[in-house]
């Protein structure tokens, strides 16, 4: 039995690695993708481009603008003087924030009245807008409380102490809130999913298309051995790809690995069980490579977007949250992020690992049964 499996594995490796373009396609793109996407996948909001629309132009208004630029988040790109200019700059995405002072801002402040200012934010990217608005609030908070102290001093001729809450924030696992640390482990999961799932689904269909599957069927090999022999090479390639991109993530991007590497690879094997299983399943329903590819895609696309990679699962409607329970990427992301960032171990991650294992077993049994039926 082992001999037969070995033969299939050898044949499969030869077939995959014979084509030099396939050889490079298996190993080079994951690395390149990792580097490019590692740099690209960032939701950090810095260097916010701001236009100053200051009709007041007094020391007071300039003082508030300076408060924004000192924060390091905001960068003044233009000074403008008309509504039209403000509109055009935001339309062209030249700036995404405009701070506007009407005439009288400085006077109001000096007369101890409430002065008004306006902050216009481009909401077409709601995420960036929310972050900009949060930064602006922080800046205004600091500025206002300083001014308030000064005012009280003037009005009451003595300083008074206000009771207040001093909020001290600490971010666990990711002190500086670098989005890269969050996304790189995700990108690893993504790349491996795409490579392994597509490869398996198409490789088996290919034999069907060119008719060599019949030759395999008439040989003394049984379906379990055939499946094992066909899938093991892809499992090895997948594991190797994981290793490759993990190395890039850790050494190129300095993403910390706080947990256990062995656990990471153990869970990777569990995860590959599901992706290879799904690939096998697709190959049993598709007759042509085109169908296989479309079907694989039909799975990968939603699976990635509904995995919590960028879009948090707890934001989704309840019904869709239930659907995500059968999405293996969801579990693998929790595991890989947990191991990388939180440094947690099996005592925390066992439910996810169990889920992957269960999903893997179910999908494998299903597809093996289908596969056998089609052969018989």
């Amino acid at each position, binding site marked *: 039995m082992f001999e037969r499996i070995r033969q299939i594995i050898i044949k499969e490796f030869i077939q995959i690695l014979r084509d030099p373009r396939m050889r490079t396609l298996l190993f080079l793109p994951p690395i390149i993708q990792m580097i490019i996407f590692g740099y690209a996948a960032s939701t950090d909001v810095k260097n916010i481009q701001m236009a100053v629309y200051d009709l007041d132009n007094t020391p007071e208004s300039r003082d508030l603008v300076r408060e924004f630029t000192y924060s390091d988040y905001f960068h003044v790109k233009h000074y403008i003087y008309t509504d039209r200019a403000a509109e055009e700059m935001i339309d062209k995405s030249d700036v995404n924030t405009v701070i506007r002072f009407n005439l009288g801002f400085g006077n109001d402040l000096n007369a101890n009245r409430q002065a008004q200012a306006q902050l216009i934010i481009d909401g077409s990217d709601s995420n960036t807008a929310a972050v900009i608005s949060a930064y602006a609030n922080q800046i205004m908070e600091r500025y206002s409380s300083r001014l308030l102290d000064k005012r009280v001093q003037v009005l009451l001729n003595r300083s008074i102490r*206000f009771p207040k809450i001093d909020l001290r*924030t600490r971010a666990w696992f990711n002190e500086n809130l670098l989005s890269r640390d969050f996304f790189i482990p995700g990108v690893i999961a993504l790349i491996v999913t795409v490579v392994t799932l597509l490869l398996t689904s198409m490789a088996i269909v290919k034999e069907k298309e060119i008719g060599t599957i019949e030759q395999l069927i008439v040989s003394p090999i049984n379906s379990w051995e055939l499946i094992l022999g066909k899938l093991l090479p892809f499992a090895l390639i997948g594991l190797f790809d994981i290793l490759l991109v993990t190395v890039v993530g850790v050494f190129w991007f300095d993403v910390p690995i706080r947990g256990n590497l062995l656990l990471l690879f153990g869970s990777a094997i569990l995860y590959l069980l599901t992706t290879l299983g799904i690939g096998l399943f697709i190959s049993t329903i598709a007759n042509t490579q085109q169908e296989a590819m479309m079907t694989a895609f039909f799975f990968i696309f939603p699976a990635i977007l509904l995995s919590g990679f960028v879009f948090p699962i707890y934001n989704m409607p309840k019904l869709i949250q239930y659907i995500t329970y059968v999405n293996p990427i969801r579990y693998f992301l929790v595991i890989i992020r947990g191991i990388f960032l939180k440094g947690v171990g099996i005592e925390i991650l066992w439910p996810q690992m169990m889920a992957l294992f269960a999903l893997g077993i179910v999908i494998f049994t299903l597809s093996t049964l289908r596969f056998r039926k089609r052969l018989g």
Partner: protein
Amino acid sequence: MNLKRIKAITRKEFIQIIRDPRSLGMAIAFPMLLLTLFGYALSLDVDNVPLVIWNQDKSQVSQDYILNFKASPYFKIVGYSDNYKELQSYVDKNKAFMILVIPPDFSSLINSKQSAPVQLLVDGSDSNTATIAIGYVTAVTAGYNRKLAIDSLSHLGVRDITPVDMRTRIWFNQDLKSRNFIIPGLIAIIMMVIAALLTSLTVAREWERGTMEQLISTPIKPRELILGKFIPYFVIGFVDVLIAILMGEFIFQVPLRGSVVLLFILSSLFLTGTLTMGMLISIVAKKQLLASQMAMVTTFLPAFLLSGFVYSIANMPTIIQAITYIVPARYFITILKGIYLKGVGLEILVIPVLFLSVFAFVVVNLATMAFKKKVT
């Protein structure tokens, strides 16, 4: 160019497509299904942030402060605990995102008009949600502080003297609904993928089945063959765009502020570029397995990560920004967001339109050249 020959190829291709109703159905149903699913599921809105509270004070004052979190739609208090270990496991198990720690002397500090430190511990692994959630806590706390200040001032007979009233206005997307920018982005990504998938196998299939030799032996010219194959897929792609836009309008109610005609014209331009790109891939690859891998590597992930869909291009390193110039989805997203949310016209969109035209032109020519080379 001979119209009759083009017509013949187009007819043959149409027949082939219709003969395979499963693939055709997929090409039409797939985008609809994806858009429905994602349109409902995906959101970057940060609300209902799960929060646990460690209230060591347990006085009326601290209850008052906590009440602000209860009242806010942005938070969901998932538990109270007095045990540090338990609090930590909330975060480790992803049951809570933040821990608010109120010290034992909180009320006595506030009552004696001092500053009371409150600690906010945040799971920083998802840095984006963390940044926005911290912004909300800061805003709640600032509001509470303002109330404390006004209260103690009114004890002294002074009315509200808040110095600056900063009004923030978010343009194009008042309520910061992430759906408004996710839907246009999704349309671009789905179309990018569908377009490349549709065509990427068409030439490779002819090579593999040997029918390409038959085509070559006819008097047809490369340009005619490419155009003839292009037309039927363009029709399918256009139907997809039409459906997607109708869905955005009627199901998701994304405001379409600009010109519909312009939207269709520019979508055609985008389709031209991406459909021929798929064909270029299949001409170069010659094998379906390889073509599908290449299509995947060059379309889905770049369109998802390098197009400005979720990750703002302005934040990427310069080299990666340079790479995004060859991602057609980048221009299409700018165009879609511009027409949908900002309601801008061609005069603002000149640059992306120009780049998209150049892309289409280059790819069409590359495809023709590559084909000529393969044939001879």
